[in-house]
């Protein structure tokens, strides 16, 4: 079936898709929050990291089945979302009119406040747990090899693919078929309009943060178990890549962000095969700059917006 392609190439392609899915899982939550509030949430990487750490703690203390671990992580993600919105975003939303909510000042203030929070949390975790990788009990690692023909897969890749698809579908369902989703879309579309038809904007924004953070925390826990690397800095690099994927995809388009994340992952892993590991970052950032040069609004972005 693959005889016209080098089997190693196909293998790299699959590894790349798995890596891209890791970025995509994060980019979904990132983009959701940006789409509603127009602010960059730099602390998303730390939600991802905390999700992984909480998952690990639960495993170390109670050793429940994986589903129970994920449920605990979901609850923690919910709490993190509420807390993050309260600490890093609400204090800067001093006025609720449209102009100040879309203003550059708000965007910069929240970008930096979420960045400050993220540095704080990362350093706190690092001081408490140390900077080395955490030991994960063997039976929880999602690394069971699966052979399909000549290809070597790992169970984690399938789990991530499944969970990624599930998250994407659940999110699309929530956004387009539930009341919460309706109000989130309304606030994203036109904030003052949403206020006028009686939507509680404050609660909707909290709901957005909760959904985004749950997605982030769960993907952190799963990716941590899949790669076996849980450490304080684990959220940083995927966070930057998710940010890049979001912008490449056109800022507020979730499918666009997912596609861009997959493209990033695949191009990185193919680059690793042809040139050395160190240069592979060059490919993804080069791709970003090139995309922005050709499509100044991203691949799936809307038209020019007058703020």
């Amino acid at each position, binding site marked *: 079936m693959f005889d016209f392609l080098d089997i190693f190439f196909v293998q790299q392609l699959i590894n790349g898709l798995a890596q891209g899915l890791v970025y995509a899982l994060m980019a979904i939550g990132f983009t959701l929050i940006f789409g509603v509030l127009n602010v960059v949430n730099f602390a998303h990487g730390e939600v991802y990291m905390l999700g992984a750490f909480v998952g690990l703690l639960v495993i170390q203390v109670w050793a429940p089945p994986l589903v129970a671990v994920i449920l605990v992580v979901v609850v923690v993600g919910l709490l993190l979302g509420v807390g993050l919105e309260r600490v890093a975003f609400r204090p800067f939303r001093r006025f609720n009119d449209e102009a100040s909510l879309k203003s550059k000042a708000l965007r910069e203030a929240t970008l930096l406040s979420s960045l400050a929070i993220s540095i704080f949390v990362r350093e*706190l975790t690092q001081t408490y747990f140390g900077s080395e990788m955490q030991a994960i009990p063997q039976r929880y690692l999602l690394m069971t090899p699966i052979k399909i023909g000549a290809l070597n897969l790992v169970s984690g890749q399938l789990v991530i693919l499944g969970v990624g698809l599930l998250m994407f579908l659940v999110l699309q369902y929530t956004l387009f078929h539930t009341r919460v989703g309706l109000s989130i879309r309304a606030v994203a579309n036109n904030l003052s309009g949403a206020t006028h038809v009686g939507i509680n904007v404050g609660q909707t924004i909290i709901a957005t943060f909760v959904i985004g953070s749950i997605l982030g925390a769960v993907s952190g826990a799963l990716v941590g178990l899949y790669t076996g690397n849980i450490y304080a800095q684990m959220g940083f690099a995927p966070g930057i890549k998710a*940010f890049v994927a979001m912008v490449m995809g056109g800022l507020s388009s979730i499918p666009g962000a997912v596609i861009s994340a997959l493209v990033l992952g695949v191009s990185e892993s193919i680059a690793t095969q042809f040139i050395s590991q160190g240069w592979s*970052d060059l490919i993804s950032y080069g791709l970003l700059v090139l995309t922005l040069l050709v499509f100044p609004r991203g691949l799936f972005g809307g038209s020019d917006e007058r703020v």
Partner: protein
Amino acid sequence: MNVYKAWPRLVPLLALLAIYAGLVAAGSGYAYRVATTVAIMGLLAASANLITGVAGLMTLGHAAFYGIGAYTAALASSDWGAPPVVTLLLAGLVTSLVGLLVAWLTRKLVSVHFAVATLGVGQVIYVTMLNWVDFTRGPMGITDIPGLGAHSDAGNLAIVTAVCAVLLWGLSRIIHSYFGNALRALREDERCVAAMGLSPARLKIQAMGLSCFCAGVAGALWAHSTRYISPADFRFTESISILAMVVVGGLGSLPGALLGALILTLFPELLRSLGDYRMMAISGIMFASILFLPRGLFGEASALRLLKRHFNWQGAQ
């Protein structure tokens, strides 16, 4: 110009002389190093302020331009044996050229797109520094870079301070000129600028070129004064801390950028005893300053008002 009008301009000079005298009296190498770092970071923050604060284009890759300057100076002086005068100028020009090229490529991008494009460019430059081992010597960095030529720490500090002061003076003249006003207009509304008959793209390119020149010279000063550079000095987190300096000080204000650089460079040194809690303290300062001082410590408007009220200062005339 009478004495009364001139003295506010003499205050920074006198303060500088006092600090300098204090350093000579203290005479420890550590104090000189900290003072040199503060001066260089001040210039760097002021150059970032020109793009981010005055022209309103948030940059997330400024450390990479700083790095280009540092590498140019380091390679030119250690491989070709060029004297510091040449390497400083060369570093400024090379960085400025790269900045012009980047600005020309990204001239159509606005707000967060520009920020992410500079992030991308910054990472590309960082990865190149890290991996082009034949040219940049890779992660090991460049050691034994020739110094600035003075025979004492005090002499080196004097050279660094003088170069920084000249460039800062130039930057302040640029900010308070018609060109600076055009950049401020660009920050407020790009389409309005275009409607007034100015070209936003050209303004962006010019601002980037000027700012990158200063960043490049700052990098060269850094390379010559620490005499060792490695790619780790120029990664994304450094860009973020430069941005933090500008924001803590107040976007658009030159004194603010200097003050931000002073605070964010001195605090880590003072807090060294805190050890692992140092970065937490810095992020705490950053968060508190954004929350409680939305215009920064020394925002443009408040700085001008303060000068007018206390010094009867009528702006740069």
